[in-house]
């Protein structure tokens, strides 16, 4: 199957408006209620899509695995959301936001999608304010902005440190209104376990009720996946514990292409792992690096000492040493890799040796504790809550952690996967962030997709397709139900000795060691041997207790980890094949003399869309990244 990205013709800045007005077919309002749409996921992307489609008159069913649609992982986003409002009069524009995002993505994102994203960004803020989202305001009553990485203008809208929460509650309320009106039927504590494909079109899903264990089919005219990212393939990450890739992976197994899985983002300032028992990593705002100095001891033997007792000349302020111009504010990927390097040399600090100091003593001496507290007080409190250490007195310990995944299911300009009728929104798709996502742009993309893109583009499919809605007693549904039930039985009957958590930890370690911050051919090849071997062991030695017809959280996790084994392999394969460094994908073999990522546009300016090949080596389809108006350049923030 060839990949058709369906990018509309015409000048970049007019593509979306022309597409909307001339090129896509509309569904007659009276007909909308005849269409059933299944939305899997109720995060920013899913909730905004479900609410908006229901407002338009479609019949919507929405699914999430949490006990309420309000709890999706989007709720944890802290920093903010970008929009080209130019409220600051600092020269921002749709073009500038577009340029920043394309450059931020290291010239691996699709130009037309990113331009559309920048265009609709302004509508998002209007919509959210109308819903009552309490964004930060100035005394004059107008909206406040802050600056974020990768931008020279102040365009980030925020709601204290809880932007994701407030945006999600806004979308949740819009969704709740439609549920109350009977236009959306919500299925919380329900997990999608398969997509049903009929005549090549996605026409339904199979779900498991996480309370009763009941396996059920839902038929629809279209299926939308808005199921989030796959960062938990690394086990430890800043994601919510439950985030998983089962929905996208099972769609992949049914024929949907998975694109650019190796594009993963690592955030440099997270609270380090404190022990084997660790279940998740907490993000500390990057803004701390404005005043904190990063260092480790010069000598290994000093690593166990009280940092305050280590003399100035025995400290290695390695970021300042290696990157004199940027110092502690070196970009995310560079800072992350530098931290790994010093820890690999055995100079890491803290109980596990995987940590570096972020020291505020200079700032406190210079500005006084009061000023530092005003700037970062809430972060120091959070740090104290988790580590029980007072960072005013002793340096913080930080370490990079997996934070976001740019890869995902391949979609065309209409956000439809290569399987007609299957749409993918939010972090679950691949199209807008290229090889690296800029801060405050994931929230923007999720809401753009849900509020302003899918409501138009889905109509084009529905208005033109000849495939009707099947009934769930169709044999394909029955077969999918049986497959799902058999899969669950297989997991429950394994009768081995090791728990799911145990396997997930081991998989995470392999991923982190070989496909984490810096990747090499040898490492990736090793991972590609170790992961399948561990997967085989999982199949033989997994221990689950309890049954299917009840709440069984280990069973839920087992299914998700089972999928992570396969996804992890694809990620490593993708990373192996991509013999260049770009954005979040850093291959140690491909770097400049001063350690910067070395892109290879001649050979690798393509999106890698992988086709599942039932257990055999997946097939690679390339979508060339063609820029009509942008010039590819070396990303430099010096």
């Amino acid at each position, binding site marked *: 199957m060839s990949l058709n990205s369906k990018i509309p013709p015409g000048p970049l800045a007019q593509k979306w408006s022309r597409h909307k007005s001339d090129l896509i077919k509309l569904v007659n309002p009276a007909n909308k209620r005849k269409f059933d749409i299944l939305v899997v996921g109720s995060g920013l992307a899913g909730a905004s899509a479900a609410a908006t489609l229901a*407002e338009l008159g479609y019949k919507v069913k929405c699914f999430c695995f949490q*006990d*309420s*649609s*309000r*709890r999706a*992982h989007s*709720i*944890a986003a802290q920093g903010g959301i970008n929009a080209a*409002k130019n*409220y600051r009069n600092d020269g921002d524009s749709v073009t500038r936001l577009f340029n920043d995002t394309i450059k931020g993505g290291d010239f691996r994102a699709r130009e037309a999608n990113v331009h559309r994203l920048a265009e609709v960004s302004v*509508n998002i803020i*209007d*919509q*959210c*304010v*109308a*819903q009552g989202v*309490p*964004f*930060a*305001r100035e005394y*004059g*009553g*107008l*909206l406040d902005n802050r600056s974020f990485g990768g931008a020279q203008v102040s365009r980030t809208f925020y*709601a*204290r440190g*809880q932007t994701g*929460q407030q945006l999600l509650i806004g979308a*949740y*309320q*819009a969704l*709740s209104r439609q*549920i*109350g*009106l*009977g236009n959306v039927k*919500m299925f*919380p504590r329900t997990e999608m376990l398969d997509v049903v494909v009929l005549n090549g079109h996605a026409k339904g899903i199979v779900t498991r009720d996480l*309370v009763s264990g009941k396996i059920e089919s839902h038929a629809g005219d279209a299926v939308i996946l808005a199921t989030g990212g796959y960062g938990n393939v690394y086990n430890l990450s800043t994601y*919510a*514990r*439950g985030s998983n890739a089962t929905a996208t992976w099972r769609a992949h197994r049914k024929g949907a292409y998975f694109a650019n899985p190796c594009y993963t983002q690592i955030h440099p300032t997270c609270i380090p792992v*404190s*022990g084997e*028992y660790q*279940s*998740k990593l907490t993000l500390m705002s990057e803004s701390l690096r404005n005043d904190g100095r990063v260092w480790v001891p010069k000598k290994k033997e000093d690593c166990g000492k009280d940092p305050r007792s280590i003399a100035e000349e025995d400290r290695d302020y390695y970021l300042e040493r290696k990157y004199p111009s940027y110092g502690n504010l070196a970009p995310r990927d560079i800072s992350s890799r530098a931290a790994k390097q010093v820890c690999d040399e055995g100079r890491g600090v803290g109980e596990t040796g995987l940590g570096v100091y972020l020291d505020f003593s200079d700032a406190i001496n210079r500005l006084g504790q009061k000023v530092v507290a005003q700037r970062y007080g809430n972060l120091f409190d959070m740090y104290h*809550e988790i580590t*029980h250490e007072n960072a005013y007195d002793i340096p913080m310990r930080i370490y990079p952690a997996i934070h976001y995944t740019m890869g995902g299911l391949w979609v065309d300009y209409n956000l439809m996967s290569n399987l007609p009728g299957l749409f993918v929104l939010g972090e679950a798709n691949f199209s807008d962030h290229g090889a690296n996502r800029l801060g405050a742009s994931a929230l923007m993309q999720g809401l753009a997709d849900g509020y302003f893109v899918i409501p138009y583009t889905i109509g084009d499919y529905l208005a033109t397709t000849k495939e009707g809605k099947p009934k769930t007693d169709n044999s394909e549904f029955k077969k999918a139900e049986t497959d799902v039930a058999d899969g669950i039985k297989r997991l429950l009957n394994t009768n081995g000795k090791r*728990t799911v958590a145990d396997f997930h930890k081991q998989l995470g370690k392999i991923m982190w060691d070989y496909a984490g911050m810096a990747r090499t051919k040898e490492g990736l090849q090793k991972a590609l041997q170790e992961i399948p071997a561990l997967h085989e062991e999982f199949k033989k030695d997994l*221990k*689950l*207790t*309890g049954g299917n017809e009840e*709440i*069984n*959280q*280990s069973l839920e996790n087992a299914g998700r980890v089972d999928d992570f084994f396969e996804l992890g392999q694809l990620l490593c394969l993708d990373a192996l094949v991509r013999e260049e460094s770009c954005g979040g994908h850093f291959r140690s073999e491909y770097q400049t003399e001063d350690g910067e990522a070395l892109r290879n546009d001649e050979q690798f300016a393509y999106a890698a869309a992988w086709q599942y090949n039932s257990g055999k080596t997946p097939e690679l389809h390339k979508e060339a990244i063609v820029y009509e108006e942008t010039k590819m350049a070396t990303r430099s923030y010096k």
Partner: protein
Amino acid sequence: MNVKLKVWRQKNTQAPGEFKEYEAKDVNPNMSFLEMMDVVNNEITVKGEEPVAFDHDCREGICGMCSCVINGEPHGPEYKVATCQTYMRSFQDGETITVEPFRAKPFPVLRDLVVDRGAFDRIIQAGGFVSVSTGGAPDANALPVSKQKSDLAFDAAACIGCGACVAACKNGSAMLFVSAKVSHLALLPQGQPERYRRVKAMVDQMDKEGFGSCTNTYACEAACPKAISASNIARMNRDYAVALLLNDDMPETSGE
């Protein structure tokens, strides 16, 4: 450190429940309470028994999913944190820790520590929103909002919908939860057009769900991980009184 756990075990809503004891040995005080539970669950599973079911997701105090009563207190001993932000250093070596689900009639236990809080969603569905459909919103800065009002609205909107307020209240009242949403929207200009029909619809649904009444003990405020203020309840009561006079109802809902 070592601790003993007395954990509520209940197979499903219909089954009777009971406390069972477990031991957690060599606990690192820097572990979170839920990480300690993970370790215990791992051991339980290896022994061939069924692990303790508990709700959780973000593990950083924002999703509102975790919901345990620890030593008699919803979300445990520390002030202004959720269960997932409770660390083992808050307990004594050798202590026996009692762990139960949030208990309230409208929150049936589904299994062990997992309860059904669907009633909260139904209250929001009855009216906890501004009826604006996507598209056509005016420019965001067309409507200035005083910073003070906006900050107050934010304080109320910070509610994570966990239900600790209900579990803490001897009457099982949901007034803090409902009033937080009522206040968030009543304080903003966007919420004015539906202000009174909203409060009426939400309070009516709250009553229908079987939540108890408020007798002003403020146990809810003390248990709230986000320190939502009980002054929201007074605001809601005032608005509700006005709503009764105005008699302006929300459109019929399907009762989903």
